[in-house]
């Protein structure tokens, strides 16, 4: 009896001691919950003495959170989301530079902030996801141009993300502006707003909705269409607009004033390694580390027509474009 108690107490003590000795790293991530678990789980296996606590927020929400927490952030690392939001965050003094990172130094100029405030980790392309059963039943082709979205057959059956909450949503809005010019691009968004079923907060949510048949067509990043749609077994097909589509450089940054910047730097370096970037395979993302393994049948930049997406311009005009968008669409 006594022995049992002693063993129990000893066990408890070790558990407590282990918990005590563990260092905690807080991360904000724009990755989908299921996806974030892949990378964070792998990191924890590699560094078992660091405990990662994380929150998923869409990129726009994440930027809003950093603005709200100004100078007293609840996390040390920002993982994932289009570079536009990172550029804006840098301008507002919300990020901390990390030029010492070897991964940052090795990356080509176009994938990183020249002053080291953020670093690219993947690229992604805006695409359409369509429900194949819906297409078959109605004898339709998946949309292959932006104007296909305005077809009466799709009216009320399209979903996409809010440009202010979601990085995907803003990349879409900016893409249309780069493609058609500011006035026409916004006008096209207004027309879209009359045919959408609803807007989502998360950029990848439309994919699952298409899979479920809640909507017929969704606009999202191509890797999300594959990972959350086709790969998961949903009747989803992927297509791109032939006029050209926008893309993101997905990024990562240290958050200025973060409570555990030393731990965040370990994650930062690890995330740029070939080992970590190979994990992008699971989500069909295009890694930026040239040594990383690629997913089978991966869609890369040379396979599709891209618009000249100026992330700097997109960042600097974000708040203005979103205010205009809100005024026009009323959402």
């Amino acid at each position, binding site marked *: 009896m006594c022995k049992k108690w002693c063993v129990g107490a000893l066990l408890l003590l070790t558990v407590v001691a282990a918990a005590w000795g563990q260092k905690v790293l*807080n*991360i*904000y991530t724009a990755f*989908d*919950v*299921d996806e974030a*678990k892949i990378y964070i789980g792998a990191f924890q296996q590699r560094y078992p003495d660091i405990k990662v*606590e*994380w*929150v*998923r927020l*869409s990129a*726009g*929400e994440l*930027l*809003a*959170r950093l*603005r*709200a*927490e100004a100078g*007293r952030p*609840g*996390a040390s690392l920002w993982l994932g989301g289009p570079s536009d939001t990172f550029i804006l965050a840098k301008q507002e003094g919300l990020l901390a530079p990390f030029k010492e990172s070897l991964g940052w130094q090795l990356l080509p100029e176009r994938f990183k902030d020249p002053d080291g405030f953020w670093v690219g980790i993947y690229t992604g392309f805006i695409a359409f996801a369509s429900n194949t059963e819906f297409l078959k039943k109605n004898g339709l082709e998946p949309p292959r141009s932006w104007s296909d979205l305005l077809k009466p057959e799709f009216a*009320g*059956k399209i979903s996409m993300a*809010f440009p*202010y*909450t979601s990085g995907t949503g803003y990349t879409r809005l900016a893409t249309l502006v780069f493609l058609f010019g500011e006035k026409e691009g916004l006008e096209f968004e207004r027309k879209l707003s009359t045919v*959408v*079923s*609803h*807007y*989502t*907060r*998360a950029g*990848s*949510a439309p*994919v*699952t*909705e298409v*899979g*479920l*048949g*809640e*909507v017929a067509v969704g606009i999202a990043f191509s890797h999300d269409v594959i990972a959350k749609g086709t790969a*998961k*077994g*949903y*009747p989803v097909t992927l297509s791109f607009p032939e006029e050209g589509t926008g893309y993101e450089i997905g990024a990562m940054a240290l958050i200025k004033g973060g409570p555990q910047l030393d731990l965040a730097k370990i994650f930062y370096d690890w995330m740029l390694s070939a080992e970590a970037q190979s994990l992008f395979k699971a989500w069909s993302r295009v890694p930026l580390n040239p040594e990383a393994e690629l997913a089978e049948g991966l869609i890369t930049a040379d396979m599709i027509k891209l618009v000249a997406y100026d992330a700097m311009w997109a960042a600097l005009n974000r708040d203005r474009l*979103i205010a205009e968008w*809100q*005024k026009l*669409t*009323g*959402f």
Partner: protein
Amino acid sequence: MRNELRRLVRDPGLFVVVVLVFASLGLFIAFPLGRVLQTSLFPRGVFAPTYFKYFLEGRPYLLRPFLNSLTVGTLVALAGTMVGFIFAYVVTRTDVPGKAVFRWIATLPIISPPFLLALSAILLLGRHGIITRFVQANWGFTWNIYGLPGLVLTETLAYFPLAFMTLEGVLAGIDPALEESALDLGASKLRTFTRITLPLATPGLAAAILLLLIRSLEDFGNPIVIQGRFPVLTVQAYLAITGMYNLPLGATLCVILLIPTVVAFILQRYWVTRRSYVTVTGRPSTAGLRSTEPWIKWPLFGVVCLLSTIVVLFYGMVFYGAFTKLWGVNYSLTLENFAYVFSTGATYLTNTLKLAGIATPLGGILGVLIAYLVSRKRFPGRATMDFLSMMNFAVPGIIVGIGYILAFNTPPIQLTGTAAIIVLVFIFQRMPVGIREGIAMLQQVDPTIDEAAADLGAGFFRTFRRITLPLIAPAVVAGMAYMFSACITSISAVIMVVSARWQLITVALLHEVDNADLSQAAAYGVVIVVVVMLAIFLLDFLVGRVLLRRGKHAR
């Protein structure tokens, strides 16, 4: 007045408590609300109500949510009250079987997170929902549940129990003798109903309608899941803050929402309640008039059965959804979703239990203390304390949350990101219910007992601890059980103050819905409902029994 002051000075214990209670109410209820008003009117320190101007100009992103909220609120208030009245009438005025079951079913929506209904509405009636697919396969037509229809349906189901409980009391309070006299004088059943029963129940009906209007206006969980292209104020205010960090816009939307809510609250509290026609003097007579005519009772019974079936179907759907592999594609049964909830969601669950567990006793004690002060003690500012403490009952949760962000994000009191801010939101948002219970219970205890204790030389604390507390213990326990479950299921206020370190299970559920991972969301929902039921049961059983026994001794 001077008399009251003198009494306050003579009892230093009371004096200290009154000052402390005022300080906490001021800091954690009035101050955050004041910050919301200030931010909407004086965004950068100067008077610039830009968004109010836009609102009056009729900019759609401000005006539309306002009209939408009012539309949903009105429809839900009317539909919910009607359903609640039918339930109440059947339970109090007929002799159909299964009343206990109906009553139990009507409490389901109260103890579960309200947005579960929106989730199951999608599982059942979404474009790929079970019913939708069945109807489409057999009759070839379909519908769109997102937007107004989904909102009215889910909120009616979520809030009709409140109307039911209000009206059950009202109907039970109408002396059947009046109805019997009408019948004896030759009036028909219908005439008796329209000329006697209905007019007597009118204040109750008005109260129920206003209560449901308030609940619908402040609902956040259902709209964020199912509003579609029909934006309502709570969600737009949330998006303005979390999506854009546009504080003036968010605060303005809050104020626009606050106006109709507070008007409804004041009407309900000060106008309707004054016009209640109580016809019972003494014991409530439960015996008496019962509609036994088959042509009245069976159709009503049928309606209630149908409505109950709908409620059960909605909750059953969540359970079914939680055990399916991949909603919409693969309906084979699995336990994977629960494995997911207990691995990924384990921290959220323990966080929720921990914080609600801290907030409940604190809120319960504070609530009882305020109830005691307000109903038993005379001191200057008593009415103000009463009003302040009930304020968050009327103020929509999303406004409370936004107020906390605005008030406690910068020094001198910086609380964002901590567990404390969540606990404080829990306490001050959920305490009013405890107060209500406390006041109701106190009114049944003769004040001479207090006075006797005071006469025998007991001070404030001694009287409160030795006399009052044991006597009202059952009400405290009931209030705390309710508060605990309300904390666990709450979302609208806490969604603004959760952080990386302190994430809660309801917010996690919402993330799953956002991601359209419906099976996993349903599993979270099941876990929440089970935890709440267990908590209520345990609190009721353990604490209730122990305290009740002691309470009886004291009596």
